[in-house]
């Protein structure tokens, strides 16, 4: 699914990633941990093909064209990135609209995604009318509505209280199990990582410090 070999990325004189190597197989749930500035977001941006590596090789499964590749990846952001002038339904429908899906297919897929994140009662509301947890649920529904093979979640619980954060991660775990989606989640929430007992790739100062199939937050 994702194979990184000696991946290096620099921003000027700052080395964001330094010879990072790992492999993620389809269907895995992987936590990417490390303190702020450790290179988690840089790694996710490389996988989203927002930026290119300076050295090393990153092999990604999917189409060659960037926009087509991104359609096969669902992304969840810490700040949700929902459009304020669109309703919950419209926000979730956005990736399908971009793909040029027909209205009937959009409707079917959006309703399924809404059911999965348990937001049926909020369909017509706008982002400003939702709580933090609900906003992240909408973002997750938007990420899964196209049934992507890979979900990238960049600190999805960063803006949430511990209880809501736990619910969101549980939701991502459910989606991973039900849809067999590969999930790569960047976080520095130790409780969540330790609770789920999934694979952990730990980064510090741009280097992989630990890669454990049933890891803990260190």
């Amino acid at each position: 699914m994702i194979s990184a070999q000696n991946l290096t990325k620099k921003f000027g004189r700052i080395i964001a990633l330094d010879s990072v190597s790992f492999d993620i197989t389809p269907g895995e749930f992987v936590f990417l941990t490390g303190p702020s500035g450790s290179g988690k977001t840089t790694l996710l941006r490389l996988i989203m093909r927002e930026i290119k590596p300076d050295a090393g090789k990153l092999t990604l499964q999917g189409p060659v064209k960037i926009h087509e590749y991104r359609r096969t990846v669902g992304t969840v952001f810490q700040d949700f990135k929902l459009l304020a002038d669109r309703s919950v339904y419209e926000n979730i429908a956005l990736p399908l609209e971009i793909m040029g899906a027909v209205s009937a297919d959009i409707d079917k897929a959006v309703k399924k995604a809404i059911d999965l994140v348990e937001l049926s009662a909020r369909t017509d509301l706008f982002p400003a009318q939702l709580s933090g947890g609900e906003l992240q649920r909408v973002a997750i529904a938007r990420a899964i509505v196209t049934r992507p093979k890979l979900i990238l979640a960049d600190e999805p619980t960063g803006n949430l209280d511990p209880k809501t954060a736990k619910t969101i991660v549980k939701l991502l775990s459910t989606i991973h199990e039900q849809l067999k989606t590969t999930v790569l989640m960047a976080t520095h929430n130790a409780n969540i990582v330790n609770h789920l007992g999934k694979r952990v790739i730990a980064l510090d100062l741009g280097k992989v410090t630990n890669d454990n199939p049933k890891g803990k937050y260190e």
Partner: protein
Amino acid sequence: MNSPTSTAWSRIRRSPYQALAAISIMTMTLFLGSIFFLVAAGSQSVLKYFETRPQVNAFFKSDVVPTTQAVDLIKSKLETTGLVESVRYVSKEEALQIYKDLNKSDPLLLEAVTANMLPASIEVSAKNPSDLKTIAEALKTEPDVEDVRFAEDIVNQLAVWTNSVRLIGFSLVGAHIFITFIIILLIIGIKVSNRRDEIVLYQLLGATGGYISAPFVWEGILYGLTGAVIAWGVSYLILLYSTPFLIRFLTGIPILPVPVGFMLTVLGGELLLGAVIGGLGGLLAVRRFLKA
């Protein structure tokens, strides 16, 4: 599902002052364009009218009544030069009739004039206005011809005037089109900048450049189309209002009233021009951002 046009329309409604600025400058430019186009087209028609009129009048001596043979001889001499489009003989009686027609509103002028007082003449149209002088010189050599008049100066002056109108019009309208283009670029550029996060999100979700650009391009096109309709409407109203005065001013030159079909063609041209300026402005504004 939101179409690019409905997205563009909702963005216009959400920033009415920017839309007003864009439509105003577009209207001003297209109004100026339509005024210059109408003036240029009008002067071109006037020029054509004068070019097709008899351009050389050779008047016989007033005591001479030329015989048919004499007139035919002059005609054949002119025709052999190959410079002449048509030649027409106007007898003293026909001259009187023309005089009467021109002065029918003034009976006092009609009473004193008889056919004998007016000279017979030959009216000549040239194939090319530049040959008028040669034709006039040839007619002057005829012994029975007393006076030769030709409209070389009028036609030449009209041609110069028409060219000047075109040149000034093109320069002024061209400069305005450039300014309008820059303003549309700036206005849509501001909107693109305001929607930076939204555009980045679209890119992350796999949107193509075309998908992202389309609403901005449509926004520019809508500004252009609105400006074109307003500019056309105003210029048509002004034209209709001034038509009675212009008809009096251009007595005998049949270019007014302007046919509706012609005005609809002008509208089509303005819509196209407005759409191109607006659409291109929008496209460039968003492309600049996408490339950055």
